[in-house]
């Protein structure tokens, strides 16, 4: 049942994000992240982290968003599973651009660009 809750939280989060309700999405993804960590589901943990990052970013909370996008990269490294990394580098760079830190943004964009040609 907790696994089903996890799946439904992720689904709801996605729906709220699409429907321009990032604040509601944030709550769903946060709950999903906690569940995924408890249940040791690294792939769903990554999805929750990405969703949480996107939700915070949409609300203009760029510092917090960077944290969760970075968690995506960390999970990729830890589990040797690279999906979502390109997008995470791009998203972190977007956040730094919004914060006016173009130096840091450029660093992350370079990582992003280097990955555009791979799959």
């Amino acid at each position, binding site marked *: 049942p907790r696994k089903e809750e996890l799946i439904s939280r992720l689904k709801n989060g996605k729906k709220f994000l699409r429907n321009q309700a990032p604040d509601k999405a944030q709550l769903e993804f946060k709950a999903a992240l906690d569940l995924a960590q408890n249940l040791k589901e690294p792939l769903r943990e990554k999805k929750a982290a990405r969703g949480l990052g996107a939700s915070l970013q949409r609300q203009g909370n760029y510092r917090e968003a960077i944290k969760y996008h970075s968690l995506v990269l960390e999970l990729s490294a830890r589990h040797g599973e690279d999906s979502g990394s*390109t997008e995470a580098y791009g998203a972190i*760079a977007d956040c730094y*651009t919004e914060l006016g830190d173009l130096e840091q943004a*450029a660093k992350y*964009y370079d990582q992003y*660009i280097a990955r*555009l*040609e791979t799959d």
Partner: protein
Amino acid sequence: LETVPTIKKLRAYAERIRVAELDKCMSKMGDDISKKTKKAVDDLSRGIVNKLLHGPMQHLRCDGSDSRTLSETLENMHALNRMFSLET
């Protein structure tokens, strides 16, 4: 570093197109599609966008070690801003 905002805007421009076309595709396919198919289609949309963006993005990030590279990079930026209407 002047080109950084252009990278962000170009990414956002392409992402809007990707999501809109993906939505159209998903609604055409209906609900009877497997998770595997969904993933393959999502990867397809990202693959096309990423590979098309690779050249322009790379040419927005020359390190500017000599002046010719820097001025070319800025020309690339201006051309991209015009061609994708990124400045509005």
